[in-house]
């Protein structure tokens, strides 16, 4: 007795099922797709960076159209009153330009300024849309981590502005001005950016007579990860004329082997993994085998820095630059 295996019958049935299922689903959902998609204004050429051009006067604050990091032109007719910020850097900027009262929720990594402690916290990596929709926001600010979901939130009728983290200082100044403008605090944004620029330029000016700064190792983790020249921190180190031990690295956060660090013999070591971030300190570094001979360790120039201040491209970047100058050039007048 044979048990027949009739592939053709199966394949015919499968084809019929494909057709039936497709018809049913497109009938049930086809119309709704158009209805639920939000009317986001025309998309400009992709790759357009965020710009806030000339200083706006108070009278012409709204309406205006802003092109975000995804190249989408978003129109603002009035200042948003219920902002959700998924980027800790953007959160700091929002509060710094005076828009703190307009923020209704932040991501779970936001910890500055202290006022964010009382705000509801949302997921940072791959946030779920439901809590966001429930908060009824009129503006959502996303950064590069949430880039893959901008389309999803927009399709649900939410206004999303993608502000990828700026890669350099001029980018941060633009970012601050843009956030100020979007939230109806254009003057404050411009003033804050100008103040940051002034402080950074003043710090750089103090280094005018310096030819070459100290050699520095910026430790991100205890197993040798550091900041390369392509990272934001790397650009800050270049600004203060320090020589980065990882200057020849090809990626933004390379891992260096211990022998490379010892051979480079840095004059200063900055620990981003100190305290609550990883428990490293001068004592723990000194205890590492072979690290005791490094110039920085012998001179005791191993400093713990607040990684939030140094890695978040936001209003505290001027603090970071001033701190760098103080740590690297303690004898400068």
């Amino acid at each position, binding site marked *: *007795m*044979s*048990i*027949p*295996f009739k*592939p053709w*019958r*199966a*394949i015919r*049935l*499968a*084809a019929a*099922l*494909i057709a039936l*299922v*497709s018809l049913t*689903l*497109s009938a*049930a*959902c086809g119309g*709704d*797709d158009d209805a*639920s998609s939000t009317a986001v204004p025309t998309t400009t050429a*992709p790759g357009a960076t965020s710009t806030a051009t000339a200083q706006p006067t108070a009278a012409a604050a709204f309406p205006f159209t802003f092109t975000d990091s995804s190249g989408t032109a978003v129109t603002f007719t009035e200042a948003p009153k219920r902002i959700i910020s998924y980027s800790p850097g953007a959160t700091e900027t929002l509060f710094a330009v005076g828009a703190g009262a307009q923020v209704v929720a932040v991501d*779970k990594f936001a910890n500055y300024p202290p006022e964010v402690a009382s705000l*509801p*916290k*949302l*997921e940072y*990596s*791959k*946030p*779920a*849309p*439901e*809590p966001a*929709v*429930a908060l*009824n926001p009129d503006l959502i600010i996303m950064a*590069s*981590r949430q*880039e*893959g*979901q*901008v*389309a*999803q939130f927009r*399709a*649900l*009728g939410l206004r999303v502005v993608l502000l990828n983290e700026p890669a350099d200082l001029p980018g941060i100044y633009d970012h601050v001005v843009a956030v100020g403008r979007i939230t109806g605090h254009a003057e404050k944004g411009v003033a804050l950016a100008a103040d940051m620029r002034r402080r950074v330029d003043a710090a750089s000016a103090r280094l005018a007579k310096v030819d070459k700064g100290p050699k520095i190792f910026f430790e991100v983790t205890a197993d040798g990860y550091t900041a390369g020249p392509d990272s934001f921190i790397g650009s800050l180190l270049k600004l203060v004329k320090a020589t980065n031990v990882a200057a020849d690295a*090809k*990626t*933004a*956060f390379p891992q260096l082997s211990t022998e490379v660090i010892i051979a480079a013999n840095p004059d200063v070591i900055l620990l981003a993994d100190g305290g609550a971030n990883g428990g490293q300190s001068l004592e723990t570094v000194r205890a590492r085998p072979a690290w005791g001979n490094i110039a920085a360790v012998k001179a005791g120039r191993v400093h713990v820095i607040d990684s939030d201040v140094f890695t978040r491209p936001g209003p505290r970047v001027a603090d970071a630059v001033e701190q760098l100058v103080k740590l690297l050039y303690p004898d400068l007048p």
Partner: protein
Amino acid sequence: MTTRERGIAAAQAAGGRLRLRLRVPGHARGPVSLGLPALLLAVVLATSIGTVRIAPLETASIILRHLHLPAGHASATDDIIVWDVRLPRVLSAGLVGAALSLSGASYQAVFRNPLADPYLIGVAAGASLGATIAIVSPLPLNFYDFGYVALFAFIGAMAAVAITYELARVGRTVPVTTHILAGIAVSAAASAGSSLLLMLNEQRAFVVFTWLYGDFTTSSWNKLTLVTPYVAAAMVFLLLCARSLNALQAGDDEARTLGIRVERLKAMVIIAASLATAVSVAISGLIGFVGLVVPHACRMLFGPDHRALLPASMFGGAIFLIAADLGARTLLSPQEIPVGILTAVTGAPFFLFLLRRQRRMVAS
């Protein structure tokens, strides 16, 4: 008439008009009569529960209104949450769960090995490599539609299956052990490739990890309507192979004497199961344990006859993953637990329990 009365009247009218005469084969009657209502209940429950409190009746009326049936009114926000956020998510979880467990049961039948799961012959590693390539490349990142990441994941998965099959093929036959070993080798190579890419592009590493954990956060009607026909077709094909898979359990030669073209059956089952798995992974990432544990549980409940086991696995997998996804988005609300973690946390103890049963059976 209240919303409830109107809803009931509409359902009765619809049922009366559709006089479905569908003959469910004998062995499948048990699983289907239990599984189908259980699945419907799971879908309704899961759509009503979430971070935002929406009354079940309001949920029902929102769904009815979108199906162009008479229903009451609901706020715009609740409407978006139920119809655009929750329902596609629940249905996607059901579809992926059904596909993964049906594929797992089919692989276990073809390889005659209780440890076979849908990721055995390269689907997982191939999909990861494909997704990693897409995420670290300059291609635009859009998880909401079936974008580049999903496409590359699918291509990677099917390519890995094809390479594994070719590596293991000896003439016109594919010995089972060789096939599994080839799967391990291809998976190792693909994983190494992914790791290398991640090392060179650390700023995208986290995005890759969140994709790998597997979740239904970015579920959408677009993705669901695009993939359902293919997954459904593959699943129907597998269901129809049930009798042949039964015969295969006796051994390749024994099955051949019964008139089954063994190599062709194995190849087509592997292709169909891999297709269903690859498409599921493309839209939801890697969710483990569903394809491994659910068929075993169903085997305990409905026996090893594939005519009952396959439909049971399908419904069981769908309900399991819908429940796991519900837990994933409500247990630590508003934070989400990757659903793969929940399936592992429930799957691992169950596997230990199975092992103990096996040991007791062997000892007695």
